[in-house]
């Protein structure tokens, strides 16, 4: 086992012991680069403001053609701990790096208190989509499909696919907008970088032991393949009820080795195997509904 593998597994596992969350402490100071990107988000005030600023800087962006479509093929997965939205969070004993409004910090602390008591239920347990922005951090297989006018960002988990329109269209009008699992995404190409603005998302949580977000959340992303096996994504979340300032993070996805093509994305259906049925208990925690492999007397 290489050290890289060990570190990746470590990252994946530490937070999975979700019941081990002690009283969280404040996050460490961000790097200068992160401070700069956070400040950029603050300066532009809104997600639309940041997106328009980036578009102006790119002179409106450049249309993609089949000859200029970048090679984003392969099977990918997120590099960091799946239970932390921000890869800079390294411990369950530290608070997430977001600057939360007081009501949303209170909600988060209440959730973490419950987890510490062994009370935890994830809406995903019965195959509800993660939805954006949580979509960014789920730990399973991913594919990126780029076409000149539309890019598909696929996550194996819950069969979730985001569609990013790069044909120049705008979002639906405010009167016609309504909350969507993946939101509505438009984008443009700035050279080999894909810039995305996503709005119209449903309320949710960034991850099981992470903050909540509201239907007002909007994101701006810059996707850039920085190496043959590395996709780097700068993402800002704006959500005035929940976030005291935009939450900037860098998400990294790695291309997996797949020499025998055995890694393939398969459909997810929680009804495929009855042993996967999860019940929310009266106290708000999780339990299996029943097992089909036990004797009748052992079934709940």
């Amino acid at each position, binding site marked *: 086992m290489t050290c890289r593998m060990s570190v990746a597994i470590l990252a994946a*596992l530490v937070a999975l012991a979700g019941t081990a969350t002690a009283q969280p402490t404040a996050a460490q100071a961000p790097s200068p680069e992160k401070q700069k990107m956070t400040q950029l988000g603050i300066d532009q005030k809104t997600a639309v403001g940041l997106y328009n600023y980036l578009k102006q800087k790119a002179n409106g962006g450049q249309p993609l053609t089949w000859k200029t479509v970048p090679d984003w093929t392969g099977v990918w997965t997120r590099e960091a701990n799946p239970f932390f939205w921000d890869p800079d969070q390294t411990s369950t004993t530290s608070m997430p790096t977001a600057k939360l409004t007081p009501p949303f910090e209170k909600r988060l602390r209440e959730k973490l208190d419950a987890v510490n008591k062994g009370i935890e239920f994830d809406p995903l347990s019965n195959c509800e989509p993660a939805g954006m922005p949580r979509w960014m951090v789920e730990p399973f297989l991913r594919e990126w499909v780029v076409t000149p006018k539309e890019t598909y960002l696929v996550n194996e988990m819950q069969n979730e696919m985001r569609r990013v329109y790069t044909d120049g269209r705008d979002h639906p009008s405010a009167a016609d907008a309504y909350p969507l699992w993946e939101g509505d995404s438009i984008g443009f190409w700035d050279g080999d970088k894909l810039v995305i603005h996503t709005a119209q998302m449903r309320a949710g949580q960034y991850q099981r032991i992470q903050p909540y977000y509201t239907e007002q959340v909007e994101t701006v992303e810059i996707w850039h393949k920085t190496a043959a096996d590395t996709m780097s994504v700068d993402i800002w979340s704006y959500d005035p009820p929940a976030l005291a300032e935009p939450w900037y993070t860098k998400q990294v996805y790695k291309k997996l080795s797949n020499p025998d093509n055995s890694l393939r994305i398969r459909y997810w259906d929680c009804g495929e195997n009855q042993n*996967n049925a999860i019940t929310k208990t009266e106290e708000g925690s999780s339990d299996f509904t029943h097992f089909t492999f036990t004797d009748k007397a052992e079934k709940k």
Partner: protein
Amino acid sequence: MKKVLGCLFGAMVLIAAPVFAHHSAVMFDENKEITVKGTVKDFQYTNPHSWLLVDVKNADGSVTTWGFEAEGPSTLTRAGIRKSDFMPGTELSITGHPMRDGRPAASWIKATRGDGKDFDPRNGFAIK
């Protein structure tokens, strides 16, 4: 040396913590481990979770079917575990974190097949 210690620490955590990325693992007791020996009844290689069902002979001669839960097929594939590795009738020793309420199920930590080959389903989150 520091790097080596870091790797070893990663391996130690691998042994200690349960892995469930789709639903909470609170129904399992992460502070306990149970190991049983038996034969594979069925390997339910399904999304979002797989179940390895193992028939275990009790002292009184009766048989209890135990279920060991792991992640789905793609994560198991990344861990080098294929459906054909555990055909019905395969003998094995398998370890997991047991259910808190005593039902015969556990989160799968490791298994050793009758031919001596070891399997660790949680290697499926390694990036390689």
